[in-house]
């Protein structure tokens, strides 16, 4: 009930939208009315076009994100525990961190063309740094008494890394993954606006070019909604996994 009340303003916005278009406050051309958007959404959904394209987009994003998470956590842990690795990799991470990964769109276009690989690589590159940095910080921040306790209970170096450092760093790692999730959506959409033959970004661009604005609105709201939903779901996942934190 409380959640419903919290998101009520969104309904207010929708109501205002409907009122504005119905009473001619804005041109229906620029702002399609709610009904047309809804109808276009339904049409896209039932024709399968929306699901197909969204599926391709999310599939690519998932692969890129999963790879980035796996490599990122391993890299972060290695950096945190092995000094030479840290000295070598840290400056590179610091140098590349402030660079917007979206700037790599033309680069992956040159390297991999317009197919799936360019987008997967782009998302991988864009998402790996937040995971590396948060894993590194999380691992470094582990209280040394936890490590010492494990050592005095007979744990090997490897066991300490996987059984103590990694779980202790999870809260921070999850934060990095959440950021990476948001990045993956941004990179997914922007790369598909430019270099794609399918996917939801491509769909939006095509609909816009073709003047089907109601359908375009419908797709944009869909992808925004999915991005929001993914973040919330991930938040729930984090809370469940970390339920040992605060009762």
């Amino acid at each position: 009930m409380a959640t419903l009340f919290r998101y009520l303003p969104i309904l207010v916005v929708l109501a205002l939208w409907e009122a504005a278009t119905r009473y001619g406050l804005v041109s229906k051309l620029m702002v399609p009315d709610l009904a047309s958007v809804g109808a276009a959404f339904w049409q896209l959904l039932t024709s399968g076009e929306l699901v197909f394209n969204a599926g391709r987009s999310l599939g690519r994003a998932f692969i890129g994100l999963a790879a980035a998470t796996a490599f990122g956590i391993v890299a972060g842990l290695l950096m945190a525990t092995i000094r030479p690795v840290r000295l070598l990799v840290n400056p590179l991470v610091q140098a590349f961190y402030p660079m917007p990964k979206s700037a790599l769109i033309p680069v992956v276009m040159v390297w991999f063309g317009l197919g799936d690989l360019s987008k997967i690589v782009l998302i991988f590159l864009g998402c790996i740094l937040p995971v590396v940095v948060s894993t590194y910080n999380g691992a470094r921040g582990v209280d040394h008494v936890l490590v010492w306790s494990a050592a005095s209970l007979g744990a090997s170096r490897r066991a300490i890394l996987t059984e103590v450092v990694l779980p202790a760093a999870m809260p921070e790692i999850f934060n990095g993954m959440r950021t990476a999730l948001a990045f993956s959506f941004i990179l997914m959409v922007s790369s598909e606006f430019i270099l794609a033959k399918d996917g939801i970004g491509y769909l939006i661009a095509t609909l816009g070019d073709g003047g089907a604005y109601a359908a375009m609105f419908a797709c944009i709201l869909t992808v925004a909604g999915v991005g929001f939903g993914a973040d919330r779901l991930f938040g729930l996942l984090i809370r469940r996994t970390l339920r040992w934190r605060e009762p």
Partner: protein
Amino acid sequence: MTATRTRRRALGDLLIQSLVIAAFLLAWEMTARARVINPFLLPALSDVLMRIGKDLGSGIAIVDLSLTLYRALSGFAIAAAIGIPLGILMARWSLVRWFFDPLISAGFPMPKIAFLPIFVLWFGLFDTSKIIMVAFSSIFPVVSAAYAGTQGVDKWPLWSARALGAKERELLWEVILPLALPQILTGLQIALPVALITTVVTEMLMSGKGIGGTMMNAGRFADSVGVFAGIVEIAVVGILVIRGVEALRRRLLVWHAETRADA
């Protein structure tokens, strides 16, 4: 640890960091020279730097850079001008908070770049739509930070000021805002790189001039040197902007504990 030892350690780290980056750049140059990788995929660093020099000389780079910065800073300014008051109002008026809170928190994880086609539809193909896109993307961290900063102000200085006779308006400007400033600045610090990135991406998506547009053009014409030149330019601008903002923050917050803690 003594002060000199900390300084020496910091210098040592800086040295190693610079060495690693230098080694990386050297490796780049050597690999490209040795034609290990197709020069189309990885142009030599020297070629890229020469291109940047050439573009700077001919003025193209200056035009692009100024255009990108103009768009980014305009969008950022709008985001700040609307976002800060909105955040403060949210903290002071529960109705405002009720209305905007879900919009802000729902908007945060959304890929806001998806809304670009809408802005193009409404505002055309030129600077206006780009600037509005940038403002839209950047406003979220600003509102969030202004809200949190104003909300989190300790009630003790407020009560003291009231007891000393301050009126509501004076209270806002003379007590609340200065105390909320650190957090507001943090929000702005986050928003500025966001504004830059959004500008570059928007330029890529809509072509024309500006660093993003030029890079995208280079990509289309298979001019990989141009593409890499663009990346280097963005990286440099990004670092300069971030460092500049950090310095500005230190100047503005001279009175604050966090600045004194470093000294």
